[in-house]
């Protein structure tokens, strides 16, 4: 068994909880159990299922005697169900006996009818003290906070996308990673299987707080550097990340580091002289999250100092990572950063 401190009987732990949120690293027993049980997972046999459905369809009308009577009754029952479904198609919001699993609808809140479908292109606008909750069976739930403007851009099997022009949302997403996106003025929040709160101003500045799983923030505004780490922030559960004007992602930091650390992060983001020293000194191993993001947002001597401190706090498995990061070779540096990210995640 590892030396990790386990939670009490109510399961509360300080810091990330791999067992519940999948964030951080499992302890020895958890790793053993996961490794042993992984082999019991089954990802299905869709062809087998379809063949089974076909067989079921062919059985209707085959057979005779008592069996045929039973099937006829089933057919009558099915016909009745279809008729009922057709009625729903005419009178209800769902239609044709089919359920649009990807559709978004209003669950609760002010200014609308519960169950009403939220159509692509339509805006939800809330006033002071108002909130609206919407949900999609395939994706999860989103609560639109007061004084907010949110548009459903797209809702399909491959992608669900909202536009948060201004205001706040609280999202609880259970869809697979990279299916749910929220565009803000200048940035996009990519859901990686999580729960989070986001608050943005019309100029794109704002804050993201992740309470479960993690979110990737991508700068998509004017002048954004694409394809580089500098325009992306990876924000795990328990951390917050500010967005600068234009949606530039800031440095994510764990809230359990305290407000003092958060203040240092803000000072570094705004380029305040001397702030970097304080941040490097105050950082714990767990704050490798912040330093990892800082590596690619600094240059020259500052980058070398950040890399040196991160090497102390989170030594990478590959000893060549530090040199590769400061080598100036973009491709080698990116590969090394990605490898280091794995170690940083394990340090939570």
């Amino acid at each position, binding site marked *: 068994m590892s030396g990790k401190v386990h939670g009490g009987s109510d399961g509360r732990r300080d810091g990330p909880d791999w067992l519940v949120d999948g964030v951080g690293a499992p302890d020895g027993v958890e790793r053993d*159990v996961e490794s042993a049980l992984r082999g019991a997972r089954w990802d299905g046999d869709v062809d087998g299922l379809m063949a089974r459905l076909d067989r079921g369809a062919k059985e209707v009308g085959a057979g005779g005697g008592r069996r045929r009577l039973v099937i006829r009754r089933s057919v009558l029952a099915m016909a009745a169900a279809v008729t009922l479904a057709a009625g729903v198609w005419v009178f209800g919001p769902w239609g044709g006996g089919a359920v649009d699993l990807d559709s978004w609808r209003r669950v609760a809140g002010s200014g609308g009818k519960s169950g009403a479908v939220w159509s692509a292109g339509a805006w939800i606008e809330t006033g002071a003290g108002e909130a609206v909750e919407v949900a999609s069976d395939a994706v999860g739930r989103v609560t639109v906070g007061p004084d907010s403007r949110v548009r459903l851009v797209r809702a399909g099997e491959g992608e669900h996308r909202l536009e948060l022009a201004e205001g706040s949302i609280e999202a609880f997403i259970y869809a697979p990673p990279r299916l749910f996106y929220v565009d803000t003025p200048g940035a996009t929040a990519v859901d990686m299987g999580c729960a989070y709160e986001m608050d943005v101003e019309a100029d794109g500045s704002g804050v993201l707080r992740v309470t*479960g799983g993690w979110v990737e923030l991508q700068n998509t505004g004017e002048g954004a550097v694409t394809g580089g780490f500098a325009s992306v922030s990876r924000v795990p559960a328990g951390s917050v990340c500010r967005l600068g004007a234009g949606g530039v992602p800031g440095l994510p930091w764990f809230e359990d580091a305290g407000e003092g650390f958060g203040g240092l992060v803000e000072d570094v983001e705004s380029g305040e002289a001397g702030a970097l020293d304080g941040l490097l000194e105050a950082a714990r191993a767990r704050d490798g999250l912040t330093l990892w993001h800082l590596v690619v947002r600094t240059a020259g001597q500052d980058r070398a100092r950040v890399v040196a401190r991160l090497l102390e706090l989170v030594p990478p498995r590959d000893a060549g990572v530090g040199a590769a990061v400061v080598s100036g070779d973009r491709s080698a540096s990116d590969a090394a950063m990605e490898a280091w990210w794995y170690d940083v995640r394990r340090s939570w």
Partner: protein
Amino acid sequence: MRAGRGDREAFAALYRRHVSMVHGVVLARLGRAGRSEAEDVTQEVFVVAWRRLGELRDGAAVGAWLVSIARSRATDWARARGRRSARELARGGAEGLEVSDRDPRTDEVLAMVWALPEKYREVLVLRFVVGMTGGQIGMCLRMSPGAVRVNLHRGTGRLRAAMAEGAR
């Protein structure tokens, strides 16, 4: 995605999205004796779901709806299995337990999970076998985040004790 009568492609997408979770729920209920049949029962769950898609008109969450079907089918199967096993035992048959051709360690740990109370079994299988997070488990099982957290930790605690005992 529209998954309704006659729309097989959409139903296949729904299947792919939820099949491992449904299999986990079934697996948690069948016990060791039914491990190899869990896949078959899972397929049955989706056959039932296909026939009953109209029930989803009220907008109930798909995952939770599938869980309710899976629990019901697995319980039916386990009862039938129990009756069969009793008859087989009465006749002196040897079909009560299966010989597994899979990783023995998987069966060993699964046996420890199955020895736990039901409230722990389901969340542990969904977490460790299927790889769902606590939040996803809560949505599908209609449990509060706190209840999922407590059951995961208490269940894992019991598993630790069982593994430590087994290691002696």
